[in-house]
């Protein structure tokens, strides 16, 4: 099993969710986050004085998937979250030791 963590542009969330549903992903967890990468921040003016917005709002997805589905998940997120402009985000993959469905006690891939 793998845990796919993707940081994406907030306005792309619906597209990514649909793309993941289409390939059979059963559930995702979404968190509103802030951060910076190569895009860095941007400057704004408040009452005539400049200030820097260091951390930009992003959405973080956590998707636990069976290892067989991994390449498809990565492709689905990469395509659906891509705008071609700086700040599209990143995908991190880590191995997942165990998963348990609380209601039934199922474990492993069955629980995903």
């Amino acid at each position, binding site marked *: 099993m793998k845990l796919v963590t993707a940081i994406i542009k907030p306005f792309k969330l619906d597209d990514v969710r649909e793309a993941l549903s289409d390939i059979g992903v059963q559930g995702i967890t979404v968190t509103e986050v802030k951060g910076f990468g190569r895009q860095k921040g941007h400057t704004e*003016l*408040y*009452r*005539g*004085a400049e200030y820097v917005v260091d951390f930009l709002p992003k959405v973080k997805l956590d998707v636990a998937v069976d290892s067989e589905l991994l390449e498809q998940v990565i492709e689905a997120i990469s395509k659906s979250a891509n705008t071609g402009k700086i700040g599209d985000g990143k995908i991190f993959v880590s191995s997942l030791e165990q998963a348990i469905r609380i209601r039934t006690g199922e474990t492993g891939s069955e629980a995903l």
Partner: protein
Amino acid sequence: MESNVFQLQYAMDTFYFLVCGALVMWMAAGFAMLEAGMVRAKNTTEILTKNIALFAIASIMYLICGYQLMYGGGWFLSGIAGGESLVADALASSAEEGFEGGAVYSKASDFFFQVVFVATAMSIVSGAVAERMKLWAFLAFAVVMTGLIYPMSGNWTWGGGDVFGLYNLGEIGFVDFAGSGIVHMAGAAAALAGVLVLGARKGKYGPNGEVHPITGANMPLATLGTFILWMGWFGFNGGSVLKLGDMASANAVAMVFLNTNAAAAGGVVAALVTARLLFGKADLTMTLNGALAGLVAITAGPDTPTPLMASIIGAVGGVIVVFSIIGLDKLRIDDPVGAISVHGVVGIWGLLAVPLTNGDASFGAQIAGAITIFVWVFSMSLIVWFALKVIMGIRVSEEDEYNGVDISECGLEAYPEFTNSTK
């Protein structure tokens, strides 16, 4: 029959006065919301506490001694209820004035209308010193401001008294219809003195003259506050006609309402466009300040301009306020809500705009009046702020400022779930 007509007119004018006073009272809500929106979330509870407490202090101090000092209305309002001859006296005054003469109305309504103006002047101070002043030092200042400083300069203007027996502003032709100078610039002068003694918020200015903006926490509240002030201003200026009960007065009231609205609109558009040209984006808080600048600008003379002229006077105020806010930041005078610019700098413009449309006013008299009010309020305020600094200190500790004065002064966060204590 004539007596009945006078009674009706008396009732109508008194009622008009009371309703306008209630509208001006509502401006306290406007100031509270505007200031709550323009400070950071961690300083919200304290500024709300300040706003409601200062209104109550103003009400009580003006009752105790302010009204006596300003209009000779009696210490503790003694005699305001009137004796058994109250109705007979009022009827005699009405007969003397005639139906279209000066307004005759209940003395109690006059006090009520005047007291809410004192509170307005004091409200101006609270925004400028926000986010770093000790609550109790501020409230102690409010006692002196509303009980002594404002009533004295009020006496020299609307009260008709001589300035320390030296000269009389009314006699030289000083005109300030509803208080661009008497109320708004006076409040700003006290605020300026406070800010100079207090210093800027930590982090606002860098060592090499950089300005670091500290953004307000709640733009919807700031906007609501501005709308409330705009509405209350109809009472502020409209009520200052002092009479509704005959056709000429009714027309004057309608004109004042119209011009007040026109000036606010001019201020909004001018500030919006000025900020767009200077900064490249629509700047909401500057636009809100523009509305108030338009209102302050027209307050000294909403009765004489044409509606177009009123819009222009307001628009000039809207341009002035944007440059004034930038200029004060360059001077490192930290005013979180822009009160000194809106009420002080534009208040002076309001006074100077009167002679443009009112033949009874002169630039010389307007300048003399502005200087008299400013020097008195500013120097007295400076003395009081310094005295408070020595006696009890006026600034919270650096750590309390960092954590927010909500916790250090009031022990309560305004938005407990969302407050970010590290920011």
